[in-house]
C-alpha cells in the first residue's frame, strides 16, 4: 500500500479499457482459471465480437466487468476495468449499482428464463427506469411503451401488462432488449442473445440491435460462439480460448487472415455456401482444456496441428502481426488460411 501518495486515478482515453482482468473460482475440485489476464479497449459506438467455445470464459469476463460473479467461490484476482475514467473494480457496491443498467446493460442468452415469470413485462421494464432515472409510474410506463414500440412489439400498450409466458421467444428477447436499453446505456453487453432463438428470429434480433445501435450510438459487446453472427455486425473480434484472448483484430483480418490455429479451426468449421458438396465440415480435434489443471504451455497445444516443442513449455503472448491485429502463437507466421 502506497501510503500518502496519490497514485492518481486510472485514466484512459477509451470508453472502456480492460487491463489484465483475471477471474478465478475456488471450487472443491481446485482452482478454476476462468479468465486469465485479458486486456482490450473499446471506443464509443464500436461493436466488439467475443467468440469462443462454451466454457472459454466469454460470459465470465462480462460478468466480472459487471462485478456479478458469485463471490465466493469466484474471485476477481487482479486487473482494472476502466469505464469513463473510473475503475469499476474499485467502486463501492452502491456506486456499482448505478453503473449497472444505467451505464452498462446486459442481455442474456435465454429469453425464456431471463424474464421473471411472476412479474409483468411492464413492471420489469419500468423497474430500471424508476431506479436510475427517478421516473414516477406514469412517466416510466410512457417510456416503456416507447421502448416496446422501438423494439418492434406490436400493440405495445396492450402488451405492457402481459406476463412473459404470453410472449413468444422472439418477443421476449425484444422485451429483454427494451429492458437493457431503457436507460440509454453506453455499453450493451449481449451474451449470446440469439442462441436460444430459431434462425429467422436470430436474424431479426441481430438486425434490431444493429439498427438500435446506429440510432442510439451505443457500444456493443456481442458474446457468441457463432462466427457468422459476428462477421455481419462486429468491428473488432476477440477470439477467446481457455480464458485468454488468443487473437484479436478488426473483423476483416480475423476472417480473412487468421494467425492463430484455433481461429483457423473455428473458421474451418463454418459451412461454406460456395464450398463443394459432400465435403465434411472441419472440426477441431480434442476438447477444450479443463480450466482446473491448465497445461503449462499454450492451452491450445494439445489440439493444435501446428504445435512445436516450444508450445508445450512456454505460453505465447499476444504479439502484433499488423496494426491492431494480434495473435498469441509461437508459430503464427506459419498459420495461413488455405
Amino acid at each position, binding site marked *: 500500500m502506497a501510503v500518502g501518495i496519490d497514485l492518481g486515478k486510472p485514466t484512459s482515453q477509451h470508453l472502456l479499457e480492460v487491463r489484465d482482468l483475471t477471474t478465478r473460482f475456488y471450487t472443491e475440485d481446485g482452482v478454476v482459471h476462468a479468465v486469465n489476464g485479458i486486456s482490450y479497449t473499446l471506443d464509443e459506438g464500436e461493436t466488439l465480437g467475443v467468440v469462443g467455445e462454451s466454457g472459454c470464459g466469454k460470459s465470465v469476463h462480462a460478468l466480472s466487468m459487471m462485478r456479478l460473479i458469485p463471490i465466493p467461490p469466484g474471485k476477481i484476482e487482479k486487473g482494472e476495468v476502466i469505464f469513463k475514467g473510473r475503475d469499476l473494480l474499485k467502486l463501492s457496491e452502491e456506486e456499482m449499482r448505478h453503473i449497472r443498467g444505467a451505464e452498462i446493460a446486459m442481455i442474456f442468452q435465454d429469453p425464456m428464463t431471463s424474464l421473471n415469470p411472476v412479474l409483468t413485462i411492464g413492471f420489469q421494464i419500468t423497474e430500471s427506469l424508476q431506479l436510475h432515472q427517478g421516473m414516477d409510474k406514469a412517466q416510466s410506463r410512457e417510456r416503456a411503451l416507447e421502448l416496446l414500440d422501438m423494439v418492434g412489439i406490436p400493440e405495445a400498450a396492450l402488451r405492457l401488462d402481459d406476463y412473459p409466458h404470453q410472449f413468444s421467444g422472439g418477443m421476449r428477447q425484444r422485451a*429483454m432488449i427494451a429492458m437493457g436499453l431503457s436507460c440509454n446505456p453506453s455499453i450493451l453487453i449481449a451474451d449470446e442473445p440469439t442462441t436460444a432463438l430459431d434462425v429467422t428470429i436470430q436474424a431479426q434480433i441481430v438486425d434490431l440491435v444493429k439498427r438500435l445501435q446506429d440510432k442510439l450510438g451505443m457500444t456493443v459487446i456481442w458474446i457468441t460462439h457463432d462466427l457468422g453472427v459476428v462477421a455481419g455486425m462486429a468491428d473488432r473480434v476477440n477470439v477467446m480460448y481457455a480464458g485468454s484472448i488468443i487473437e484479436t483484430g478488426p473483423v476483416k483480418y480475423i476472417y480473412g487472415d487468421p494467425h492463430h490455429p484455433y481461429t483457423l479451426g473455428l473458421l474451418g468449421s463454418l459451412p461454406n455456401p460456395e464450398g463443394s458438396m459432400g465435403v465434411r465440415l472441419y472440426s477441431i480435434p480434442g476438447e477444450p482444456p479443463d480450466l482446473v489443471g491448465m497445461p503449462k504451455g499454450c492451452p491450445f497445444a494439445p489440439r493444435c496441428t501446428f504445435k512445436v516443442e516450444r508450445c508445450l513449455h512456454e505460453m505465447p503472448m499476444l504479439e502484433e502481426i499488423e496494426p491492431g491485429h494480434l495473435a498469441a502463437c509461437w508459430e503464427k507466421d506459419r498459420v495461413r488460411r488455405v
Partner: protein
Amino acid sequence: MTNETKQTLVIDEEQFLPRREMSNLERWLGTDTYRALRGMVTNPTSIVGLVLLGLFLFIALAAPILAPPISSNPYQIPRDGYGSVPKPPGTLWNSRQPELPFWWKPIMGTDQWVHIMGTASGQWDIYYGVVWGTRTALQVGLLITFVGAAVGITIGAVSAYYGGWLDMVLMRITDIFMAFPFMLAAMTLSAVLTPVLGKGLFPPMIALMAFGWTGFARLLRSDILSVREREYVLAAQVIGVKDARILFRHILPNAIFPTLVLGSMRIGSYVITFAGLSFLGIGAEVGYADWGQLLSFARAWMTNLGEYWYIVIFPGVALVLFTLSWNLVGDALRDVLDPRMQGSR
C-alpha cells in the same frame, strides 16, 4: 423514424400469434391470480375442500345462532346435570335449557330443546362442544400456522439470502428443533408452560408454534436457493436492483408457493395435534369447547363404544372433515400454483 422502424421491424411471427381475449375480471385480477382462482373453482378436489371449509366457516360464524350460549362464556360447554352415564342424541334437557333459536321450531317442530348429539359423561352437551369447538379449531389452526409460517419464512429467507455462516447456524438450529419428535416436544413444552401461563389454549399453541416453524424454514430456504440461480435474478442484478428488493420482489414471489401450500395443509394437522394434546389433558380447561376435549370424554367408555358411539363420532367426524378440507384445498392450491403447470396458454 418510428414509422419506418415499425414497418421494417414488425415481422411475421408476432402477427400470427393468436391474441387471447381476456375478460374484465381477468384484467382486473391479473392473469396469474385469475388462473389460480379459476383453477380453484373448477377443480373437483378443491370444490369439495372449499365447500367443506365454507361449512366450517359458516358454523363458526353462526355459532351463537346454532347453539345460543347459556352462560356468559360461550366457549364453556353447558352441562345438563352431573350424571356420569352419557345420554344418547335426542334426550330432553332437564335443567337450564338454552333459549330456543328462531330456526328450532320450524325445523324440529317442537318447543323442546334436546341434546342434539347427546351428552358425554358429566352431561356435557356434545352439540355445543362441536359447534363452538369449530371456532376453537379455526382460531388455533390459523394462529399456529400463521405464527409458525411467519417465523419459518423469516428464518428461511434470511438463511438462504445471506448464506455463509449465518445460514449454517440457522439451519443447524432448525435441525435441532427438527430432531425432537414433534408431538413429544410439543407435549413437554406445553406441560412446562402450563404452570407459567395457566391452563388454557396458550401453552399448547405456543408449544406447537415453537416446533412447527421448521418445515416452513427448510422448504422456503431450498426454494429460494433454487430460484436465486435463475437467470432473471441475474437480469435484475444487471439493471442494478437492490438486493433486498431482488429478494422480496423477484425471488420470493417465485419461491413462496410451495410454502403457502404447506401452510394450508398444516392448518389441518396442527388442529389434529392440538386435539391430541387436548385429549391427553394438556390444553384447555375441562369443559372448554374443543374437539380434542370432547374426544377425551369418551376415554372411559372406550369399551362400550357400540353403545356410546356419539361421544366419538361427532367430534371425530368434525376433526376428520376439518383436516380433510384443508388438505384438499392445499392439494388443489399446489396443482393450481405449481409453476411447472403454467406457461402454456
